[in-house]
Structure formats: C-alpha cells, structure tokens
C-alpha cells in the first residue's frame, strides 16, 4: 500500500489540473482495492473526469449523504452510514470514501467490494485526505480559468460590436461651401446606443439624424443599426421629415424588441437656401443660434418603435448666414453634478447665448458640461452633438488703388570694409516710425548690412570712387530698401543654397552665406541689372494698413 501512497503524495506536490487529479485519484483507488469496482459520486464537473462503470445516480447536493459526509469524512462500510440516502441506495456500495475539504463536499468514492482489509481502509482514508483539498483547489482554479475565458470572449465580442457600430457613424462630414458641419459622439460604454447620421439627398438637400435608443450597450446598438437603415431607406422615398419618421416608426414597430424605443430628431437642410425642415420623435429639442438669440426648435412626436401609425409634427426655419442649429442627445442634458443636480437645458441655452453663433459651439458646451460634472464624473449615458452652421457671407474684397510711393530717405556710404553697419544703422533710423516689429527691424538690419557688404565688396570692389547708394521708399504697406552699386560687369550670380553638411565635409566653402541670409531676412528680394550697376530691392511688409498711422 505504502509505495502507492508515496507515489500519490509525490504526484500531488506537482501542479496538476482537475482532470489529471481525478484521473490519478482513480488510478490509485483502483490500485488499492483491485479488482473491485469503484465509482465516484460527485458534482458533475468533477465526475466527468472519472472513467466510470456501473450506474451512478445523478449528483444531488441536497441528498443526506452529502451532509453526512461533511460531518463524518472518514472511510466506512456501508452499514455504518446511517442515512436515508437515495444516492446510497442507487450506488449499491460496500464501502464509502468521502472526500471533504474545508467543509466542502468534493465527492464520494463508492467501492462495491465490502470485504476490505483494515490496511486498505486506512490507505483509502489517507488517499481521501490527500486528494480532497487538491481537487477542491484545482476545481476552483478551473472555475476561475473558465470565467476569465468567458470574460475575454465577452470583451472581444464587445470590441467587434464597437467596430461595427463605429462603422455605422459617418466617417467624415460633408464639406459644403458656406456651411460648417461638426459632430461629437462619446458612448458611455464600449458600445453605445446613440446614433447620428448625415445623409446626402438629391439636389442640395442633406438629411441630419440624431437618435438615442432606450437601452445601452449591444442591444441598443443593434436597434440603432436597424433605425439607421430604416431612416436611410425612408429618406430616399419620402420628402417631408414627418413622413420619414412616420415610415421609420411603422417599420421599426414590427422589428424592435418589446419595451425598447428610440427617440430621434430628423431634419432636411437645403444647403442652397438655408431652409431647414425638421420633425422630432421625442429627442431633445435642438437650439437655433440665430439673429434673434437662442431659440428652441420644438416639434412633437412619439418615440419610434412604441406604437405604429403615429404622425409627427414638422417645423421649419431658414438658417441665415451666421446662424447655427445645434442638436444634442439627453446624455448631455442629463449629466449630473456631484450633488446630483442635472445639467438641464437652461445651462445649454445660457452657454450658447454668450457665444458667437459661428464659434465652435460643441467644444464650448462640452467644456461647460465637464466643469459642471466635476473631475470625478463617470459618464452615465452616451453623449452626441451635431452642429450645422451657415457661415457668414464673405465681405466683398474692395479693390484698392495702389498707394503712391513715398521716398523716406536717400543716402550713400563709401565702399569700404565694415561700412555695412553704418548703412544698416542709418536705414533703421530712417524707418524708426514705421510699423515694424523688433524682429522685422533686426532682420532688415541684417539684410541691409549683407546687401551693402556685397555691393561694396563684390560690386564696387572697395573702390573709393564708387559708393553704395541706398534709397528707402514706402508704398502703402510695403517698405522697399533699394541698394545700388556701380558694377557694370554682369548679373549677380544666382543664390547657391549653402549646405552646412557639405561645408563641414569640405565640399563647399565655409563662406557663401550672404545672399542666402538676405533672402531669408525679408519678405521679397528683387535684383535689377541697370546700365549703371545692380539694384537690389529688399521689401518688408508693414504691420498696418496704409493710413493707419
């Protein structure tokens, strides 16, 4: 007996799953009581790993045998088990070996052989004492494993549902001249029950949909997918928003699960005229932010999917340039603050009233909502917003007569090394009153100095009889500094863009930065070759419109 027991004990020290443990328990029991038949009466998740023979009654946790085994967890002949147990009768057993660990009934081995030796019974008792806790723990681990797998499957399914649902939302909003459409959508769970849609219709028409299913997560998303299809189909067949909702309602009533419904705002916008016709199946009333302030666009109607044969009121406005319609789901209005107060529609109206109608209204509303809800807010419901803005008409561009050039200063400097700083200082002094930033002044200084240096060195070759001429002219909002030399030897070479890598590698001269710098320092550089020499004109755009100073 002993070697079997030692082997079993050693085996239990190694990690084993439930099926392995039960299998090994069976092996050792059969080895100890051979050749008698032994069956295992236990919860089905444990007995399924036992190689069964004979008729085993279904496990019944309420059978008195279970309570008895927990109270007396030792191996006994059948005659010493004084309980009226249907299982015990059906098992037709000679000896029972209860497996109990920490008060949990793990199972009961029924051995049909009754004439077991005391040594066999003691060994079985010891086996049961070793096996019961091991099986209990392995069973627990198995259950956790199953639960984790189920959780992973659910998470994966939700992720797929989210991908499908996202694919039902518009990938991008139409870009229509004179209009700005924006939308924002955030589900409370991985998968949401809100829906928005923008449907291009023939002509200049555009349908705008915002819906909210009465449930959340996957069931709501499935219903919203159906609603989207029904609305899209109806919008192609009928023209008026009320008719679209009525038709979608009739179709949905036949398909929606009991107890569910969908609120839905539906509008048709004529982007040519700004005509905006709408109907509403119980969704939050959108706001018009127009010349008369903030107005509610109300139209009554039953939510979709409750009762067939409903009709829907229609409303109509014209979106004038500079007006916005903003639609939102109740996830926004029903946001609660930490004290439990609801965000409501008044805060929305107040926020919109303070804003420019064409400003980004959605971010502004979300910011106010976030502030109201506080940092520890957990989103309760899906939040969806759509804004439709008719942009202000651009003001006609007024043709301006070119301003008269005004000469500010004319002077010259000698062609000598380092003369450029004198010239540049003088230019800056001459333009001191002009509207230039500090950066523009420093850049003009550098550009002038570099150009004068080139004129003196490369144009005039530092000849004392040739000077560098400088003329400062303002024309409207442009400042021109014309720098001339007396070089009649041909055009100024093209700028070769200096490359620091090539210079460091010795492939270009370390010098040669002058013309490059001049071009970078001012808004425009023009070079004129004249019979008397070169003229380089540096142009800087002034910061004010002409006549402003």
């Amino acid at each position, binding site marked *: 007996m002993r070697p079997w027991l030692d082997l079993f004990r050693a085996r239990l020290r190694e990690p084993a799953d439930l099926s392995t443990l039960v299998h090994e328990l069976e092996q050792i029991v059969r080895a100890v009581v051979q050749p008698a038949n032994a069956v295992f009466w236990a919860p089905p998740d444990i007995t399924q790993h036992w190689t069964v023979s004979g008729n085993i009654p279904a496990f019944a946790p309420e059978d008195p045998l279970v309570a008895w085994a927990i109270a007396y967890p030792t191996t006994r002949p059948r005659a010493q088990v004084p309980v009226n147990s249907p299982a015990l009768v059906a098992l037709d057993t000679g000896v029972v070996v209860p497996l109990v660990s920490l008060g949990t009934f793990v199972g009961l081995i029924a051995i049909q052989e009754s004439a077991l030796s005391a040594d066999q019974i003691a060994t079985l008792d010891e086996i049961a004492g070793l096996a019961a806790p091991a099986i209990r723990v392995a069973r627990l681990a198995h259950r956790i494993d199953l639960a984790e797998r189920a959780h992973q499957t659910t998470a994966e399914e939700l992720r797929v549902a989210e991908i499908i649902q996202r694919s039902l939302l518009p990938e991008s909003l139409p870009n229509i001249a004179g209009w700005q459409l924006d939308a924002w959508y955030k589900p409370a769970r991985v998968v949401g029950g809100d829906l928005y849609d923008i449907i291009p219709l023939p002509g200049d028409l555009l349908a705008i949909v915002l819906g909210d299913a009465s449930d959340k997560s996957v069931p709501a998303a499935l219903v919203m997918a159906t609603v989207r299809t029904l609305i899209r189909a109806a919008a192609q067949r009928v023209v008026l928003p009320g008719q679209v909702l009525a038709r979608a309602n009739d179709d949905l009533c036949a398909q929606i699960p009991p107890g569910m419904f969908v609120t839905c705002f539906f509008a048709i916008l004529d982007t040519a005229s700004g005509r905006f016709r709408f109907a509403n199946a119980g969704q939050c009333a959108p706001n018009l932010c127009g010349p008369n302030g903030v107005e509610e666009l109300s139209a009554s109607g039953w939510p979709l999917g409750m009762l067939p044969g409903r009709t829907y009121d229609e409303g109509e406005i014209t979106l004038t340039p500079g007006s916005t319609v903003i639609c939102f789901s109740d996830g926004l209005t029903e946001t609660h603050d930490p004290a439990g107060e609801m965000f409501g529609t008044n805060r929305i109206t107040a926020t919109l009233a303070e804003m420019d109608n064409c400003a980004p209204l959605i971010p502004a509303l979300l910011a106010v909502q976030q502030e109201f809800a506080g940092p520890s807010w957990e989103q309760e419901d899906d939040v969806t917003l759509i804004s439709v803005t008719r942009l202000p008409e651009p003001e006609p561009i007024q043709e301006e007569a070119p301003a008269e050039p005004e000469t500010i200063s004319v002077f010259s400097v000698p062609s000598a090394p*380092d003369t450029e700083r004198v010239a540049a200082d003088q230019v800056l002094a001459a333009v001191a009153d002009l509207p230039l930033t500090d*950066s523009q002044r420093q850049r003009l200084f550098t550009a002038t100095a570099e150009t004068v*240096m080139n004129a003196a060195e490369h144009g005039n070759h530092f000849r004392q009889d040739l000077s560098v001429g400088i003329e400062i002219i303002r024309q409207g909002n442009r400042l021109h500094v014309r720098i001339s030399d007396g070089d009649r030897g041909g055009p100024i070479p093209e700028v070769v863009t200096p490359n*620091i890598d090539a210079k*460091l590698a010795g492939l270009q001269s370390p*010098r040669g*930065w002058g013309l490059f*710098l001049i071009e*970078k320092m001012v808004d425009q550089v023009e070079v004129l070759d004249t019979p008397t020499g070169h003229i380089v004109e540096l142009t800087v755009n002034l910061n004010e419109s002409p006549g402003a100073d």
Partner: protein
Amino acid sequence: MSEATITTVVRQVSPTISVIDIGGSVTRAADQALTNAYHEASGDKTRAIILNFANLEYMNSSGIGLLVTLLVRANRQSQQLYACGLTDHYRDIFSLTRLDEAIHIETDEAAAIAAAEQR
C-alpha cells in the same frame, strides 16, 4: 571708419571644457583673433568648447563662415562646440543656416557647461 573689432577671452572651466567669451563684432576681421582663441582654448584633453556670445554686438555672414571653419576644426579634433548667450535674432540665424544642428545651442554658460559635462 574704424574696423569692427572682436574681443575674446579664453577660460578653462574644467580639464575638458573651455569657454571663449566673444564680444564685439564677428566679421571677416575677426578671423585671426577667433583662430588664436580657439587654439588657446583647445588643449589635449579638451572635449568641449563653449562660445559665449553674451557680449556679441554684431555678426555677419563672414562671421558665420568663420564659425563654420571653427566647426570643421573642432570636428577634426573630436571636440564638441557649444554656443550660449545668443539673442533671439542670432538664434534665428543659427536655425535658418542649420548651424544649430552642428553647434549645441544653450541659453547661458551654466546650461552649456552642464550639457557639455553630460556628454
């Protein structure tokens, strides 16, 4: 007309780091002075040379050419060049010319020394 002049002061701030204080004008006339200062700053153990431009008055394209020449020398000797104390305008020029990719720019000398010590 007086020629623009450069002033240079060389300081060794650690066995491996030297600082050249550059004042006045960095133009073509500064060539010799800058070369001398570089040689003075560059010892056997020198790994980093910091050009401190806090007192710079003027630098033109010829001056930029001189810095490129210094860079070539420093690269040959496996030394790093740092620049500090540049005004926004000259930082702008270092950026336009991409000099700032070859010379490490720091706001002040302490930052340049700290950066040089970390390398």
